[in-house]
């Protein structure tokens, strides 16, 4: 019996460890020689059932086998450590079906099982397969390509003569061995995808890699429309968010961030809000323009940044992924689809959070978005940037004048972040923030209660800090005494809203710890292997 556990996740993609025996392990994603690794596969003759087979045929003819366990789009419960996505090679050219099947199967497959896509992997598609959640591949497709005299590269399959064009210098090319080249090209592409998982940027890589293959672009778009694929996304990341294509707009990370801005976050004041443009530098407040804005606003309004592709970023949340991490090609043009998405976010924000006054200190596309959203939300805007130059003396003067009668009140990022991160409205009066932004610690009197993770923008509660938070608990099974990190099988229960990367409080019989999750609630409860929480501090009672 082999065992699989994921060591690092990036959405549905994983770097994992497949333990085949006491002696042999494979680090995934990887290419395997399936029949030598799983000899029982040789006994699966005459078991074919195409993925499009009906429920009735499935009931009659489906053979799951032992290891790897075959899965079928009709599968409703799946067990096993290695899952064989039978005949997946016939699915991958149909993006709509591929996304539909995969969404369904990700929900029923055990999280601690490796997913094997037979005869699918090519250098040109394996990144998208890994992105979708596959861990294991084989050489069948590249070997077939070699037999068909096709030269495989990440950009596609070309005539074998392309071997002579100097685009590759692998040992296969040196030896004129097409099969070897194709195999090496597949292995290299898997290694490259792995690098992007490590960086937490497989999405960015996928947004690039898909471009020469319509069905991969289509897949990306279908995946973005199916909520099941977003279940395993981390709550935040520390990596940059590269918004370099129109599909960046539909990343689930953005909807997730904005959902909390709209539905969890509550502004600390509702008298006056000023809508500000974004800055290339992140967090915004370190940029020259925002230092100017903040000097002029001088705590007399709630600062809210309107930006693409995020939509709305209240000043308090500017450090949180992806607000503090995104990078976008600037041309000064906001396209209509982009604008429509942003209008939706801003409309929802202004509808949910009613301010007495909303000052619009924006220009260009952002100003248009604000106008449309304000109208939709039934809000009247006051304009302070009438020369389309938010930094001009005139504009800054107008902004200053607009706030003349407004009272000063400091924006509290801790309060805002507690709302966004934990959905917890806490009275922070008397709390003290020390340290140089964004490396800060929060104290209540002399007791440290939080620190800020400057890489993600989240708050890290101390044991004392957890007193202010109700949810985000992980409960250890009775009689289980964790040594170091918390393993999934030791978890009895947890808050279902927990995501990978969340700060959690771990409790159990005579045990308390603070830590950060490495998997989401669903996986914690279903997985039998793997670290679930990296413990920061333990409090043994």
């Amino acid at each position: 019996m082999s065992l699989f556990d994921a060591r690092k996740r990036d959405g549905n993609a994983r770097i994992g460890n497949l333990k085949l025996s006491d002696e042999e392990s494979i680090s995934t994603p990887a290419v395997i020689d399936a029949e030598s690794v799983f000899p029982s596969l040789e006994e699966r003759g005459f078991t074919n059932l195409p993925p499009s087979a009906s429920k009735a045929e499935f009931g009659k003819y489906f053979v799951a086998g032992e290891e790897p366990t075959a899965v079928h789009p009709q599968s409703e419960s799946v067990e096993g450590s290695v899952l064989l996505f039978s005949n997946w090679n016939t699915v991958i050219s149909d993006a709509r079906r591929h996304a539909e099947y995969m969404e369904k199967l990700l929900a029923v497959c055990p999280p601690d099982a490796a997913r094997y896509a037979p005869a699918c992997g090519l250098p040109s598609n394996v990144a998208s397969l890994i992105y979708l959640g596959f861990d294991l591949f084989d050489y069948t497709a590249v070997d077939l390509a070699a037999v068909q005299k096709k030269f495989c590269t990440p950009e596609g399959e070309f005539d074998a003569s392309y071997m002579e064009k100097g685009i590759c210098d692998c040992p296969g090319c040196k030896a004129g061995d097409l099969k070897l080249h194709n195999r090496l090209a597949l292995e290299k592409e898997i290694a490259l995808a792995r690098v992007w998982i490590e960086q937490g940027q497989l999405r960015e890589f996928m947004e690039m890699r898909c471009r020469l293959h319509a069905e991969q672009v289509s897949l990306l778009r279908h995946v973005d429309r199916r909520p099941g694929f977003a279940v395993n996304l981390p709550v935040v990341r520390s990596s940059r968010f590269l918004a370099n294509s129109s599909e960046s707009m539909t990343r689930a990370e953005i909807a997730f961030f904005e959902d909390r801005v709209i539905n969890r976050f509550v502004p600390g004041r509702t008298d006056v809000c000023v809508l500000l443009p974004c800055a290339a530098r992140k967090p915004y407040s370190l940029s020259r323009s925002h230092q100017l804005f903040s000097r002029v606003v001088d705590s007399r309004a709630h600062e809210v940044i309107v930006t693409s592709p995020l939509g709305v970023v209240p000043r308090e949340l500017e450090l949180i992924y992806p607000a503090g991490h995104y990078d976008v090609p600037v041309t000064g043009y906001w396209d209509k689809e982009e604008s429509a998405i942003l209008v939706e976010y801003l409309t929802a924000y202004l509808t949910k959070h009613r301010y007495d006054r909303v000052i619009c200190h924006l220009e260009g596309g952002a100003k248009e978005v604000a106008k449309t959203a304000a109208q939709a939300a039934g809000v009247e805007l006051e304009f302070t940037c009438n020369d389309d130059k938010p930094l001009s003396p005139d504009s800054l003067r107008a902004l200053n004048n607009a706030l003349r009668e407004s009272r000063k009140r400091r924006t509290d990022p801790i309060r805002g972040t507690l709302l966004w991160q934990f959905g917890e409205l806490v009275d922070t009066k008397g709390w003290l923030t020390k340290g140089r932004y964004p490396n800060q610690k929060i104290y209540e009197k002399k007791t440290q209660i939080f620190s800020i993770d400057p890489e993600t923008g989240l708050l890290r509660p101390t044991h004392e800090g957890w007193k202010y938070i109700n949810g985000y608990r992980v409960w250890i099974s009775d009689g289980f005494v964790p040594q170091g990190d918390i393993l999934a099988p030791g978890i009895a229960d947890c808050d279902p809203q927990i995501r990978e990367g969340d700060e959690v409080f771990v409790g159990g019989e005579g045990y308390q710890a603070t830590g950060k999750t490495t998997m989401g609630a669903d996986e914690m409860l279903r997985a039998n292997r793997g670290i679930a929480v990296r413990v920061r501090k333990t409090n043994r009672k």
Partner: protein
Amino acid sequence: MTDPRKPLASWKGQDRYFGEVLSSLTGIFLSGGCSWNRCRMCGYKNDRDTCSKDELIDHMKGQILWMQENYAPDEYQLGKIFTSGSVFDPNEVPLEVLDAFGEFFAGKPLIAESRSEYVTEDALSRLLKSLDKGQAHPLTVAIGLETTNDTIREKSIDKGNTFEDFIKAAETAHNAGVGVKAYLMMKPLFLTEKEAMEDMEKSIREVAPYADMISMNLCTIQGRTELEHYWQKGGFRPPYLWSAVKVLREADVPVACDPVGGGFKRGPHNCGTCDKEIVAAINEYSLTADKSVLDDVWEIPCACKKEWEFVLTNERSWNMPLTQ
């Protein structure tokens, strides 16, 4: 709407019959419809005349009349009749019509298609009565056995009968002095290229003792069938012509084969380059049983043979089809 008093199709050709090459007349007749009507690859499911028995008799006799009016008796030496079902099923082909068939082809040898369960002493003697004028091998019943493997026949075709049923029907036929032609099907659904090829090799070996003639059909994709549904979703590839050639070359008995749709994507095909030549060779071999024509095409240096070999070696139930 098709004219129910005109056969669905008819043509003249040549056929090998008990070792002799005869000119033939083939007719595909609209009948009451196959009583089974479930085979996964069958495209004739909608070809059924849903009317009263009397009307059916009238319609079918009309079709026979149409044949008589369009083909002179001296134009052909052998008759072949198909109803996309069973000629000997009295519900599908009323006995009056069976008689009319016998009368039409009286004095000539006739091949009539039927599912095994309808091959009864009564039915055969009824037809022979009008047909048999002392000619050699007056009647041969053609039965779609498809494969001698009951498990494959059930899953891949859903044929609803067994090899044992076929053997019984063959005995019945032979006892009545009627010949037996077995139709086998190369590569129905759910089989790898190799499984399909090996199944065919085994089926030919196993059916040979019971059949006077063997015909190998290469699976093609007909419209509005289950097979087409799977094919459209990438779940099926028709057999390679290489597989057909290999089976024919290595068979110990002569096997006829008409590679319908050969070289097209819905029919048995290789890469598109070598297909025409191979289809022609298979057709010639079917008539002449001369294996040298097969040996010749076997040596065509087409690049796709390597692909076919790769598919034979690497295609599995869980990664198929590897090619399209």
